[in-house]
Structures are given as structure tokens and as C-alpha cells.
């Protein structure tokens, strides 16, 4: 069930009513109900993978308790158990997500030497959401080992944390230290939570349906058929693709966070106006935050600590590896690795020039100056767009081909009336809202103090969604190409 589909809302109504009516006094009852709903939801998406989810949940539940027992009495064993947990989590992820890719690559390598294999189409079906719940499990054992959390003895609670339906398929990735304590108390139907949750859902719906799905047709038509288009079209499509990626993912995250909020549970934020970043370093602190903070906490920091005797170069290496891992997490393709390396290189350059830049900024007090801020935002946006061109390409040769094509043939672009008439005003609205939120202007719509203004804003947003949104679920509108 996609979050912006009617059937999901029916499901959600069926889940939330008993949650608040029958189980309101019992946190165990609520958790059990959520657990059943989550497994139903996951099963609807991919029922064959339910046994995997159950088994892996049981194993990590047991590991958590064992690690805690051994933390004080037998630290070495605790270390080994933690390593086992990490290896298991990474191993499962590797098996389903990357093994097929590596086998194919080896097969291609062998074939280029003339050795025939029948493995070049070897692939394994990837369980949906695996990149997300394995990360939750791994962070659970690591945090238990670092003694930052107490592992839970309540199996239902633990399973609910892992399988929680709003976030299991596409995140945000929650930390046990933040989420498990919330599950330990019963949640009540709270007006503020429900209202705010609803607002977030509607805003997320707007972002996804009115902007992301609207841009999808145009960007796919051009970028999937880039050989038939000139550089101007490819450039415009790439820039719009950045916006599409952002609104699609943040729209989805807003809906997931909103649904959780209605249920009384606070979930990690994923986006903080990333395109208002003034350099790539800031961008990665604002984009897909639940993932980047996870990788920073569990890969970057340990690496940084390990490389500390190599001074700055150790840190640069840690940064580079960090970004490559973030890139590779997205999927099994060399383009994702290149995407990570590209950003890694930029971040290393930023880190290497950090001290000089800070001095320069202080000397001319540039930080608040508009002529300093806005060009940097634009430059960051362009650099991110270039990264997303690499990200989106199907393979490396396509990626280089597209970039090469951007260097010549700038003539009149392909335009599509519907995309621009409906897309551009909403993009402008989004930009306005982002700047307003960043600078805390006094105009409020969704968060006005007056109920009437809030209701009117919600009403208008819903009109935009139903009347001007792309309700075909971003289906590929068959362009003439």
C-alpha cells in the first residue's frame, strides 16, 4: 500500500480506531495491535519475506539481552556478540541487496575473458524495506554494547519498534534510544498530536502529488530518452529531478511522520530544507538525516577515531569512505558508488579548506550577507543536481554520456504545458515556505494561531491536491518519445 493511496487510509482508519478506543489504557495492548497491523502492512507489500523479518527480529532480540548480560561480566564476549550482530545485519543486507550485483559483475568479467557462465542474470529478490529495518537492528545491538540503552525484555515492544508500519518501507530510520521509551508508555488521543500529524500528512501529500508526481512525467520523458533531447532539456530535467527527488522523499517522510504522530509516536526527522544549504557539508546535514546520522554515528565516527593518528588525512579518508557508503546504501550499481565518491571528494575539499574559509568569513563578516549566501545556495544546488544525474543514470556509460551531452547543443528545450503550468507555481510556493521557515517570518498559514486560518490553509492545499495534482500516482504519462 502506498501511503498516498485510498486503501492505505482505510487501513489506517481501521488500525487507529481500536488503537485509541479499545487499547487506550494498555500500552501492551496498543503495541500488540500495532505489531499485528505492521505485519499485515508488510505482508501486503511482500508476504514471502515475513518469515525473514520474524526470524531476524527474534535473533536480535536475543542478542540484545545477551550483550547486556555480558557487558560487565565478560566484555570480550559482549564485543564478539555485537560483532556477530553487525555482521549478521550487514550480511543479510549484503545477501539480498548486493550479492546478485556482484555475481553479475564477476560473470561479466569472466565473459570478457571468454569464459562462459550462466550467472550474468543472477538476481535475488530484495525484501522490501530491508535497508531500513536492518539498520534499526544493527543500531540496537551497538547502542546496547555502548551502554547507551537498556535492551528490552518485552518482545512485542521490540518487534513493534522494528516492524513499525509507517516507517518500515522507506524510513525514517529511528534509534532504539528514542523510540523504545515511547513504546513503553500508552499513547492517548491528543488533539495537538492529531492536528499536527494531519497537517504534516496533508503537506506531505501536497509535496508528493502536486510537485513530485507532476515533475516525474517530464523528467522521465527526457532523462530516460536523453539521446533524443538537447542539452537545455537535459539540464532543465536534471534540475527538476533534484526538486522531484526532494519533494518525493520528503513528502513521503512527512506523511510517515504525520501518521506516527497521530498514533502518538515521535519519529526522527528526515529533511531540514536541504536546498537552503550553503555548502555540500551543510547539505548532508539536512538531507535524509535519519540515514546520514546513522552512518555518521556508526561508520564515520568509529573510522574517524580509528584513523585519529593520521591527522587530517585520516579524517579525509573517513569522510570519503562515509560518503561512498551512503552512496552504495542506495543500491547495487557503480553509479551509486560514483555518486558517493563524488560527494566524498567535495566534502573532503570543504573540510580541507574549513579553517581558511572560517577566517575569511569572519574577516569580512560574510555569513549574513545576501550576496554571499544566495550564490552559495545556488552553487550547492547545482553540485547536488550533478550528483543526482550520476545517481539516476542506469550505468556508468550512460552517466558519462549524459554529462558529455550537457556540454553542447543548447537550443530550445522540450516543454510540456501541464508540467510547467501546474509544477512551477507549486515549486514557487514550496520555495517561499522554505525561506519563510528558515528565517522564521511572521506569516503563518498551516501553523497560524487562528483555527480558521489553519482550516482554510488545509482546505486550499487539498483543493490543490485534488484539482491540480497528478492523481495517476506519477504514472508515466506517455509522452511522444
Amino acid at each position, binding site marked *: 500500500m502506498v501511503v498516498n493511496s485510498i486503501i492505505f487510509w482505510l487501513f489506517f482508519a481501521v488500525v487507529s480506531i481500536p488503537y485509541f478506543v479499545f487499547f487506550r489504557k494498555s500500552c501492551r495492548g496498543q503495541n500488540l495491535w500495532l505489531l499485528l497491523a505492521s505485519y499485515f502492512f508488510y505482508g501486503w507489500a511482500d508476504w514471502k519475506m515475513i518469515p525473514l523479518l520474524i526470524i531476524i527480529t527474534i535473533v536480535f532480540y536475543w542478542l540484545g539481552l545477551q550483550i547486556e548480560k555480558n557487558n560487565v561480566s565478560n566484555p570480550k564476549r559482549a*564485543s564478539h556478540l555485537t560483532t556477530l550482530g553487525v555482521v549478521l545485519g550487514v550480511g543479510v543486507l549484503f545477501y539480498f541487496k548486493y550479492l546478485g550485483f556482484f555475481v553479475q559483475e564477476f560473470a561479466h568479467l569472466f565473459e570478457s575473458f571468454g569464459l562462459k557462465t550462466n550467472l550474468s542474470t543472477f538476481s535475488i529478490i530484495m525484501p522490501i524495506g530491508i535497508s531500513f529495518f536492518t539498520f534499526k537492528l544493527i543500531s540496537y545491538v551497538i547502542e546496547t*554494547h555502548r*551502554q*547507551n540503552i537498556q535492551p528490552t525484555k518485552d518482545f512485542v515492544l521490540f518487534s513493534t519498534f522494528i516492524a513499525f508500519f509507517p516507517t518500515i518501507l522507506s524510513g525514517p530510520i529511528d534509534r532504539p534510544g528514542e523510540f523504545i521509551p515511547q513504546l513503553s508508555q500508552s499513547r492517548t488521543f491528543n488533539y495537538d498530536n492529531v492536528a499536527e500529524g494531519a497537517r504534516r500528512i496533508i503537506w506531505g501529500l501536497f509535496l508528493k502529488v502536486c510537485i513530485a508526481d507532476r515533475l516525474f512525467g517530464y523528467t522521465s520523458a527526457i532523462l530516460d530518452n536523453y539521446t533524443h533531447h538537447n542539452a537545455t532539456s537535459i539540464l532543465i530535467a536534471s534540475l527538476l529531478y533534484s526538486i522531484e527527488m526532494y519533494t518525493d522523499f520528503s513528502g513521503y517522510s512527512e506523511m510517515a511522520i504525520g501518521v506516527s504522530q497521530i498514533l502518538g509516536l515521535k519519529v526522527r526527522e528526515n529533511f531540514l530544507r536541504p536546498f537552503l544549504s550553503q555548502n555540500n557539508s551543510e547539505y548532508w546535514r539536512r538531507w535524509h538525516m535519519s540515514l546520514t546520522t546513522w552512518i*555518521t554515528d556508526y561508520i*564515520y565516527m*568509529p573510522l574517524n*577515531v580509528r584513523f*585519529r593518528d593520521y591527522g587530517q588525512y585520516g579524517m579525509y579518508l573517513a569522510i570519503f569512505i562515509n560518503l561512498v557508503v551512503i552512496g552504495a546504501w542506495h543500491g547495487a550499481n557503480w553509479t551509486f558508488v560514483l555518486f558517493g565518491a563524488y560527494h566524498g571528494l567535495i566534502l573532503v575539499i570543504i573540510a580541507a579548506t574549513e579553517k581558511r574559509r572560517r577566517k575569511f568569513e569572519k574577516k569580512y563578516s560574510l555569513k549574513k550577507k545576501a550576496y554571499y549566501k544566495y550564490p552559495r545556495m545556488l552553487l550547492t544546488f547545482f553540485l547536488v543536481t550533478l550528483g543526482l544525474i550520476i545517481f539516476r543514470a542506469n550505468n556508468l556509460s550512460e552517466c558519462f554520456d549524459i554529462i558529455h551531452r550537457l556540454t553542447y547543443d543548447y537550443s530550445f528545450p522540450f516543454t510540456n504545458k501541464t508540467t510547467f503550468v501546474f509544477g512551477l507555481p507549486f515549486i514557487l510556493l514550496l520555495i517561499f515556505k522554505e525561506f519563510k521557515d528558515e528565517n522564521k517570518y511572521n506569516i503563518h498559514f498551516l501553523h497560524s494561531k487562528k483555527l480558521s486560518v489553519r482550516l482554510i490553509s488545509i482546505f486550499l492545499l487539498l483543493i490543490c491536491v485534488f484539482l491540480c495534482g497528478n492523481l495517476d500516482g506519477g504514472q508515466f504519462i506517455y509522452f511522444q518519445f
Partner: protein
Amino acid sequence: MERQEILEQLNEIFIDVLDLDECNLTDETSANDIEEWDSLSHIQIIVAIEKKFKIKFTSLEIMKWNNVGEMVNSLEEKLK
């Protein structure tokens, strides 16, 4: 070494590494309290501490620290 002495030496290290004019570390001080104390300078601080006290921490010990107080605890243990 006394806790207070350790804390004073840490103070000096912080002022040196973070380029501060002054610093008043307490057991509760954490990275949220000092703007210049980010992940980069955190590593530099650790390297400086290890050099000054001529000790080596394990990765696990370092990852467990949440504030200055816990750093001092680890130092106390190591210096015994």
C-alpha cells in the same frame, strides 16, 4: 591525579585545540554547549589528550563518552 587537576588540564587542551579565549569545563559540559566542538575537533581533542597524558583509549571507550565528566572518568581509570 586528582579529578580537579585532570579537569584543568582538559580545559587547557580545549582552549588550545578549539582556539577559544576561555573555557570553563564542568562534568556536565557536552558538545552541545560549545559551538566549536564538532566531530572534527572532537578527534583533535582526543589526540591531544592521548599525547598529553601519554595514554591510548580504545574505540569503545571513546564512543561511550557523552560529556566531559565521562571523559574525566575514563582518564582517571587509565591513570591509576
